[in-house]
C-alpha cells in the first residue's frame, strides 16, 4: 500500500453515469469507477484496521467501520484464476476468435485480495496460475473508459 494518501477523486456523477452505461454505479462504488476515468485502480481500504476489500462495500467487513476510502494500489500481483472465453456477447476490446483470457489477479497488497481482468501482450494460452503480472491501461476506443488490464511482469 502507498504511504501517501490518495488524491481525492472529484464528484463527477453525470460523467460517470454516461461513461459506464451498463453498470450499476452507486455511491458505494462511484470512487472505483471515477478512478478508472483517471487511469487509477482504486480499491477500498479501511482507514482504521487497514483491511482492503473488493468489490467496494460501504463498510469494512473486518471491523464494520464506515471509514473506508478508495486507495491506489501498486498494481502488482499473481494470477490466481485463469480461463479463456471462446464465445460471448460482442463487447468492445474483446476478441473471442483468438480467445479472450480472463484472470483474477491476487494483489500484493493483501492475501486473498483479487481483481478480475485480462492479460494483454501474450497469446491467451500462455497465461497460467502463478504468473506475476503488472497493471497496464488499455484504451478501448471513443466513449469507453480506459480498461485496467495486466501484462506479464518483466
Amino acid at each position, binding site marked *: 500500500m502507498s504511504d501517501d494518501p490518495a488524491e481525492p477523486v472529484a464528484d463527477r456523477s453525470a460523467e460517470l453515469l454516461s461513461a459506464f452505461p451498463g453498470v450499476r454505479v452507486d455511491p458505494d462504488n462511484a470512487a472505483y469507477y471515477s478512478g478508472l476515468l483517471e487511469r487509477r485502480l482504486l480499491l477500498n481500504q479501511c482507514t482504521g484496521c487497514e483491511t482492503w476489500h473488493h468489490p467496494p*462495500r460501504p463498510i469494512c467487513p473486518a471491523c464494520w467501520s464506515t471509514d473506508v476510502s478508495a486507495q491506489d494500489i501498486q498494481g502488482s500481483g499473481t494470477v490466481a484464476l485463469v*480461463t*479463456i472465453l471462446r464465445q460471448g456477447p460482442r463487447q468492445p476490446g474483446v476478441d473471442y476468435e483468438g480467445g479472450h483470457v480472463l484472470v483474477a489477479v491476487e494483489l500484493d497488497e493483501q492475501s*486473498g485480495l483479487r481483481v*478480475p481482468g485480462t492479460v494483454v501482450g501474450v497469446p491467451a494460452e500462455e497465461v497460467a496460475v502463478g504468473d506475476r503480472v503488472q497493471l497496464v491501461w488499455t484504451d478501448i476506443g471513443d466513449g469507453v473508459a480506459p*480498461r485496467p488490464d495486466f501484462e506479464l511482469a518483466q
Partner: protein
Amino acid sequence: MSASRDRIARNPARDQVAIVGIGRSPYSRDRDGCSPGSLVLEACIDAVGDAGLAKEDIDGLIGSTVSAQWVQAALGIPAVSYFANPPIIIGNQLVAAVGAVHSGVCDTVLMYHHGYRLPWASRRAAQDPMRRRSTVGVADPRSWWGTGHNDPGSNSLFGSSAYAAWAGRYLHDYGYGRESLGHIALNSRTNAASNPGAVYREPLTMDAYLDGRMVRDPLTVYDMDIPVDGADAFIVTTAERARDLPHPSVLVHAATLGHTDYGSEEQLRDLDHSGQVVVAERLWARSEVELADVDVFYPYEGFSNIALAWFESVGYCGRGEGGEFVADHWIEAEQRIVIEGRIPVNTHGGSLSEGGTQGAGHLREACMQLRGAAGSRQVDDARVALVTPGGFYFNSQGLILRTDI
C-alpha cells in the same frame, strides 16, 4: 464455521416433512409455443394430481422467476397462507417449504422450477421471436443470484466464466487432466440413456469428450448444463398427512443451505472456504444417517467441476482427491461411476444430459428412487438419498432424503 456443534446440530424438522407429489413438464430442446408459465403450470397440475390432492388443498406456494402469485392466479388456488419466490436453485425452494410446513404457517406447499431456452442459448431458440421478449422485466442473472455484481463488462468474472476459472485452478493445483472432468460428463450421459425423459441419450466417449468444443477453458460444451424447456413441481406437506396419500413418502431428513463471506466469485479464498463446506458440516451435524448409509448420490454438475468438489466436500475423499476418487470408482464396462460398486451417481443423467434445471431434476430423481418408481434405472432398496444442489457460492445446498421406514 466455528459455531458450536449443538447449535448447528439442532434439527426439529427432521423427518417431519415429506415430499408427496411429483410433477413434470417434460424437458425438451425443440419445443415451440411454450412460455415459462405454461411449463410451470403443466408441472404443477401434474404434481397436485400425483399427490392425490385438489387445488383447494394447496395453501403454500413457492416459486421463483415465475412468481408464486402468478401461479396462484393461473391455477385458481383460492387461498394460501404462505408464498415466496426465493432465488434459484431448487434447495432454496425446498428449505423454504420445510420451514413453512413444519412451523405451521401452511400445511401443504406446491413448489416448482422451470428451465426455458433463452434466445442466446441456441440457434433454434434465437429463431423464436417471442423468446427475445421472455426476459423483459426480469432482473438479469447477476441479480437473481444475489451476487451484487455491478459490472457486466468484458473483464468481469462471474457465472460460467468464474466456474471455468475455478475448474482450471482445480486441474492446476491437483495435477489432473481434463479426463477428470470428463468422467462427470460421461457418467451423466451414460445414465441418461436409461432415462426416457433425458434430452441427450446417445453415448459419449472420452475421446469425443476431449475433442469437445471449448467454450470457457477448460470447460467444453460437454461440461456445461444443457438448456431445456421444461419444469418440475413438488408437493410438500407434513409427514403425518403424507401417510394418508397415495405414494410412499419421501421424508426430508436434513436440509441446509451454505454460504461463506465471499461476495463475488473471484474473491473465494479456495474450495475449503466454499459454501459446500458449510453445507457438509451442517448437513451431517443435523443428520442421524451417515455417508455410509447413502444409497444414491446426486451431486450437482451444472458445471462438471462442481461435482468433483462435492465428492470431496461431503466426505467421500479429501480436498483435491475428487478426480482420483471418481477414477477409482469408474466402472469401465458401464462407463459410469458406481461408488464402492454400490452407489450410482446422478442416475437420471443430471444437468449435463437430462437437461439443466438447476437441481430440480436431481431432486425429482432422488424422490423417484426413494419411491421405488425409477423404472429401468431403479437402484435396489434405495432408502437414503444425498442431494447436493449448487456450486461454490450463492447456492450451495444439501438435502438428505429418506424413505418412511
